[in-house]
């Protein structure tokens, strides 16, 4: 089993490395000269050359790549041309802020999704099942900014006025100092992801409930609760873990639109700003961070799958 896990780890690292290549190569697609693009048409050749040197644009490509990669690995994410400061200082607080949203959303949606999925699988075919499925179907269809907008209309501006529609943090304070402003962003993220988790759990659980060994457990006279908790549920977790990971990893990207919608000071908002200002190094750094988050979450899910598979664990 350890061998399998190590192999998975190595593959993840390889994928991560290829991702850094891809992110770097994307920046080479910038048409024209980045230095000139930043300084504008009026810039003097000397200033352009100076900036080029500062941005290390006059070195060969592979050297620039290794330079950048080296920086990333040692914790230096580069230089932000829009704030004229290090990318690290720009992102530091924002990463924490986004993590608050992501962790809250991940925990709530996983718990609710697993519970709802199991419940509707047990009550397959009845009214509850149909209602939950119907609502899930509708919510799953909507793009997240539509969900966010709908929540704002419902709970913030037009129908009720409970929660704020934008985040206003005093500089220096943490986002959770005003928990009320976290509610709508987290709720939006939860609503986007929970329907899929519910659906997947329901499907897997239904399959397990129909399997031979669950029927056998019932025929041995075991109580229904024992059958579900000891025989059915553990078999549904493994396959579901991967899908849940995919959903949670998706959150890493989904946070972008949500932060923009609620003007939440996280890395998503920073990404949009950086794209608008053509701040290449920031875009690189954030994209890499998000991809890395995704790879890590997937790796964890695969490990869960390996560990819960009895045919592998018993060696």
């Amino acid at each position: 089993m350890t061998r399998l896990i190590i192999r998975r780890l190595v593959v993840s690292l390889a994928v991560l490395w290829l991702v850094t290549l891809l992110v770097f190569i994307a920046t080479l697609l910038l048409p024209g000269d980045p230095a000139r693009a930043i300084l504008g048409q009026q810039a003097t050749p000397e200033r352009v050359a100076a900036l080029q040197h500062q941005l290390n644009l006059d070195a060969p490509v592979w050297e620039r790549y290794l330079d950048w990669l080296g920086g990333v690995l040692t914790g230096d994410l580069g230089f932000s041309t829009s704030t004229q400061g290090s990318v690290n200082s720009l992102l530091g607080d924002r990463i924490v802020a986004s993590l608050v949203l992501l962790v809250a959303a991940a925990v709530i949606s996983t718990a609710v999704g697993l519970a709802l999925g199991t419940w509707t699988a047990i009550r397959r075919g009845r009214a509850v099942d149909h209602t939950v499925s119907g609502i899930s179907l509708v919510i799953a269809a909507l793009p997240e900014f539509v969900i966010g907008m709908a929540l704002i209309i419902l709970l913030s501006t037009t129908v009720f006025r409970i929660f704020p529609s934008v985040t206003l943090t005093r500089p220096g304070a943490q986002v959770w100092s005003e928990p009320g402003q976290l509610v709508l962003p987290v709720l939006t993220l939860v609503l986007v992801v929970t329907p899929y988790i519910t659906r997947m759990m329901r499907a897997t659980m239904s399959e397990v409930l129909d399997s031979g060994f669950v029927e056998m457990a019932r025929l041995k006279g075991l109580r229904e609760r024992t059958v579900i908790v000891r025989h059915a549920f553990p078999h549904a977790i493994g396959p579901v873990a991967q899908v849940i990971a995919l959903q949670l990893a998706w959150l890493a990207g989904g946070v972008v639109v949500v932060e923009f919608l609620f003007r939440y000071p996280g890395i998503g908002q920073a990404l949009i700003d950086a794209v608008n200002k053509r701040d290449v190094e920031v875009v690189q750094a954030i994209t890499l961070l998000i991809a890395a988050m995704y790879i890590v979450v997937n790796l964890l899910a695969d490990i869960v799958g390996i560990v819960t598979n009895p045919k592998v664990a018993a060696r």
Partner: protein
Amino acid sequence: MSLDVTDLRVSTVDGSPVLHGVSYAIAPGEILALVGESGSGKTTAGLAALGHFRRGLVPAGGAVTVGDTDILSLTEPERRALRGRAVAYVPQDPALSLNPSLRIGRQIAEVLEAHGAPDAERVAEVLAEVGLPTDEAYQRRYPHQLSGGQQQRVGIAMAFACRPSVVVLDEPTTGLDVTTQALVLETVGALAAEHQVAALYITHDLAVVAQIADRVAVMRDGRIVETGATRDVLGHPTHAYTRELLDAVPSLDGPAPAGHEGTPVLAAKDVSVSYGEIDVLRGVGITVDSGECLMLLGESGSGKTTLSQCLSGLTAHYTGSVELDGVALPPSVRRRSAAQLRDVQYVFQSPFSSLNPRKTIAQSVELPLTRLTTMDKAQRRERVAEMLDRVRLGRSLAHRLPDQLSGGERQRAAIARALVTTPRVLVCDEVTSALDVSVQATVLDVLNDLRRDMGMAILFVTHNIALAREVADRIAVLLDGRIAECGPVDDVLTRPTHAYTRELLANTPRL
């Protein structure tokens, strides 16, 4: 306690009847065999004895009395109290009914715990009763660490743990090889006798019935058509269907088929296959003569499917050579010429997997002609129609999709497809193993007729030695990747030279 099922009616939730008033009774210490083919409703009738109905089925009337309680009148918690304790079930496929992530000792202990009598000693005791090791290490094993036969015996142990009065065994030996089957039958018989259990033994195999059951009930389409003592029903059947089933059972005894003269057409010479450390075939050599049928007999793991695939070109991963008329054949089908492909054809085991679900029967049967011959459309059409007639599939079925045909019809269509290029050798890999016994009889009939009419040779691969006299001239016995014995059918069956063959013959149940 006895089991008394009276006028049991079961239907689907939309009202179509599945069981039409089934009645049977089993006294303590008696074994009643419930015989029927697929779709007869025997599993439904068996599960009803535990008050259990699968998804989509509901009881519509009648009574199931265990001792003096009607299970159907009990509430679900009350039924649950009986299940596992008073009435137990042994399922068909142990691989599907044992929880893969619980240790086997735990799964047996669970039954005892569920009925309020946890008892570690009893677990060891019942393991001994079914002939399995009782030590702690063995109890800590997971199901996938056991062989099929061992898994099945764990299933039986789970059933007998609480000393039930009634046990329902649902095809417990289907899928086991003959030797293991014999062991399991012995175990079941001994346990039932010792504990005075009323046992319902569900099976489709009449030979097994003869071996183990005191009484027999024959089921068809949700009804019991005949009941009685085994000797009477099998010896002097009164119902036409019973007679049909008996006729279809292949017999090990019989007249010696006429000898066969022919020249070798297809030969395997010193064929060896290994995957890593495991040797599947070790230097095997067989020949199939023109116009004869050679049976390749072996149990699972003997390498028989691998050998048949080497001969047909479906696997190129072997050393040695395969020759057609003395000329070596390229190992892989991708390299064989059209003529070679026409001459050696293959029929797969599963009729549910060998036909493209999106193509009509006619389209599937036509495919070899389109690819391997130069016939034009009209000629191909005619040939396809002719072939379908020969396998006794009406021309009207030609435009149906496979899911509109039964298993036997699909298998005959697959045979038609294999024969449409008039091959000189037909390799049949367990082609009847997935079919009911009566359907099997028809398919074998068709094969025999075709061989006679078209003069082709057949390599018939199977695990069932009882089919030998029905279809083969010679028989080659494969054991652990080597030919143990080879010779004319009559010689091998009446005067076997190898110990394994003798064992097989001894363990094969007969009517």
